[in-house]
């Protein structure tokens, strides 16, 4: 019998290790993981990636590695259930909401361990976080190429010593997957950052989407209060070879473009009000605008979900209010009983249902009703929208004038903000400070 070659995981030399072979400093000494590095290009040339690499029409290297490692973990029995055995259907109707019957997922999922009314909460090492997962759950490290390595070089990286400068970001399996290939991207895992969006991490997530070069590999983010269950910075991603309903709805472009070519659209005819960012010459551009918006929302305690779609070319932002509504008793009992917590995947139109009856009865009307509860009201959304646009682009009416004439002060300020982060925010890199 041929066994698949694995990179050996060396057991810690530290006696006081927890013995679990986790990702904490106690166990990590000498552990080896494959490491995928991408080239963080200053100016990314436009590459039409419609699911294939532009030249060869092949599956990307990233996809091959991720799916291969995931399949390996499947055969090792690391998942709580076989997600491909869960029945899935497209709900008849105009939108094509997707429903999955998954009775096992929520029974065994880790319950939420913190308050739902604050978007920013400090990292608490006593609560569950990703340094506690077993090393076998990590698929590979995903980081920017820092030196002279070739693009796409995959190395088996020897990590003899956890140093402050080498802060690995990892891709790990989600043991309660929604779909095949469901993984978690954990930026700078040892920095123990709380679930809080920052520009650098968003850029990492965008690069992951771009490296996959697969429009069916989406990356999602849930803030606290928008159904993140773990307060340790992470993104989720999985493969699903169909468009999500939210990706298909018409949009209306707002105001003018920013100087970097990033367009902002508003969703039309969709139960959850949201914004779509697209365009821009580089991932950095779209990252700048989106992160400014997220930071604004965080600072103002508005929970939100983010969907990175189309290999990083389109980003959806959904401010939401469901958790608070739920806590205040504002959600109908009927909806509550289906126990669907509308996080980014549900909002995008992919719903996991726990009870067979709900699955059988699932209708477009139900999906619409549920998601409509999630959405901010029209008035509130307009408020949030204009504040967020101001934070990211400056006053929309001015943008046209800016484009036509020379740079104004506001553009200079925007540039500075984009480069250095929002003033007053710089401190939280260690993830331990409280933001009120």
């Amino acid at each position, binding site marked *: 019998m041929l066994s698949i070659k694995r990179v050996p995981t060396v057991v810690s030399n530290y006696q006081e290790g927890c013995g679990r072979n986790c990702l904490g400093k106690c166990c990590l000494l000498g552990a080896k993981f494959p490491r995928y590095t991408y080239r963080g290009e200053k100016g990314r040339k436009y590459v039409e990636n419609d699911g294939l690499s532009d030249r060869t029409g092949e599956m990307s*290297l990233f996809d091959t590695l991720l*799916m291969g490692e995931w399949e390996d973990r499947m055969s090792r029995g690391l998942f709580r259930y076989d997600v491909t055995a869960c029945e899935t259907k497209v709900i008849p109707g105009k939108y094509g909401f997707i429903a999955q019957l998954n009775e096992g997922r929520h029974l065994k999922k880790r319950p939420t361990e913190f308050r739902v009314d604050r978007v920013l909460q400090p990292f608490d090492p006593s609560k569950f976080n990703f340094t506690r997962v077993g090393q076998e759950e990590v698929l590979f490290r995903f980081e920017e190429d820092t030196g002279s390595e070739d693009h796409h070089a995959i190395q088996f990286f020897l990590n003899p010593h956890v140093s402050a400068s080498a802060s690995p970001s990892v891709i790990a399996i989600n043991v309660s997957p929604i779909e*095949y290939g469901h993984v978690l991207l954990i930026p700078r895992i040892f920095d123990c950052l709380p679930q809080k969006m920052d520009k650098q991490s968003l850029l990492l997530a965008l690069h992951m989407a771009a490296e996959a070069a697969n429009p069916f590999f989406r990356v999602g983010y849930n803030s606290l209060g928008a159904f993140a269950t773990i307060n340790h910075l992470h993104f989720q991603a999985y493969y699903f070879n169909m468009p999500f309903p939210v990706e298909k709805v*018409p949009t209306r472009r707002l105001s003018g473009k920013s100087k970097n070519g990033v367009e902002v659209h508003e969703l*039309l*005819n969709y139960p959850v009000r949201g914004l779509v960012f697209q365009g821009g010459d580089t991932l950095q551009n779209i990252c700048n605008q989106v992160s400014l918006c997220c930071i604004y929302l965080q600072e103002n305690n508005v929970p939100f979900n983010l969907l990175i779609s189309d290999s990083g070319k389109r980003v959806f932002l959904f401010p939401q209010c469901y958790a608070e509504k739920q806590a205040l008793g504002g959600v109908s009992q009927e909806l509550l009983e289906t126990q669907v917590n509308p996080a980014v995947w549900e909002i995008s139109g992919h719903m996991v249902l726990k009870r067979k009856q709900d699955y059988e009865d699932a209708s477009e009307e139900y999906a619409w009703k549920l998601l409509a509860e999630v959405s901010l009201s029209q008035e509130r959304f307009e408020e949030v929208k204009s504040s967020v646009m101001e934070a990211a682009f400056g006053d929309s009416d001015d943008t046209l004038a800016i484009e036509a004439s020379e740079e104004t002060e506001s553009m200079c300020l925007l540039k500075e903000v984009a480069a250095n982060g929002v003033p007053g925010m710089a401190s939280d890199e260690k993830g331990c400070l409280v933001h009120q």
Partner: protein
Amino acid sequence: MELRILIRKRKMAAQLSNNQQIDQSLGSRYSTWITEVLDEMPENFLITDPCLSGHPIIFASRGFLKMSGYSREEVIGKNGRIFQGPDTDRRSVLEIREAIREERGIQIKLLNYRKDGTPIWIVFHLSPVFSEDDGRVIHFVAVQVPISRKASISQSGFRNLEPVSGLDSTAPNSCTWSRHSPDVGNLDVKADCPKLEICFGSCRREILKDSVRGLNKSLLPDASPEPDSRELQCEDACEDINLEKKKATAAIDSILSTLAHYSKLMGKSVCGRRCSSVHPRLTRITSSLNISLGRIKQSFVLTDPYLPDMPIVYASDGFLNLTGYSRHDVLGRNCRFLHGPDTDPDTVAQIQENMQSWKTFHVRILNYRKDGSSFWNCLHVSPARNASGKIAFYVEAQLDESSLNEDDGLTPEMRQLGAIGAVKVAVRTLFDAGPSKSS
């Protein structure tokens, strides 16, 4: 050093066989005159083959080459996305991709790019070509009608189109343009006229870039648009593009009837609509599955465990390259043709046993190529389930034990597993009326 040469040779051989497949794509379905006849047609169009890896263009009309500025060699074998560019609307791209996946037609306004990088607005009309006997999609025809400058400036964005279904329309491939009306949800007044915003949002770029800044100041969006006057402008704009729409439809009809005619001469008729009501399971590899599987370079086959003797229903190019067989040789046959005189019968029995219990497993078995040479096959087998959660196919991925590492760091075993994963992802969204066999 030798390693590199060997890898390059294999790549070239694969490329060569790829080119042959492209050349034969038309020839195998239509009579030999087809290329000449298509060459004489004045319309701008492309023909693509979804059964070939990468869904390549296999024919480009002269009109198309002229419009786009590319030469034939630069276009044949490539995927249609090369004509898209930075300002091509992403949703439109998604809609086209979906139409291909769902094997139906679509007519949509689209921004394409010529070879010199200049953008051009076109009416893009795509239509599948179905084989009459088994209902499979064997080609797609894509027509491009350039939109006149006048129309494009005043034209509304018009991204909100109802896709065309070849089955539903009264005349084959006729299509309707309709606008999404905000009929659900509580949208405010501004949003009630989405077409207005789209109108000006999307063409502002052309206005500012193209011309006549002074002239078009009145078309720039202001804070509170007057619904009435702008609505009228949109109506006019829609009319302006009617001509191009009609041209596109007429072109599709003409090309399809040409293909139908020349396919009849071969005894393998095609038509613009799926005619067959009976789909033997063997042909349930849809276009979209074909396209997804075509991206996987490793050697693998899909076998159907519900048909007698578990035949191969899909074979990757990698499999054909590894074993030396042609697709025609292998489809419909059980994998045992790979066994030979020195193949261990115990291993064969083990494979059969494992498959009967629907397990994932791997074995090492001696296999033989078409030319009689043998190789040690690290065979990895796993069931692939479709959307209903039931097993739809078996994936069997082959790995030549002596295969070389490519220089990107992935081991051959990891590539093999990656291929299996990719197949599972592809099969997962097959919404076939599944078999009754439970896991």
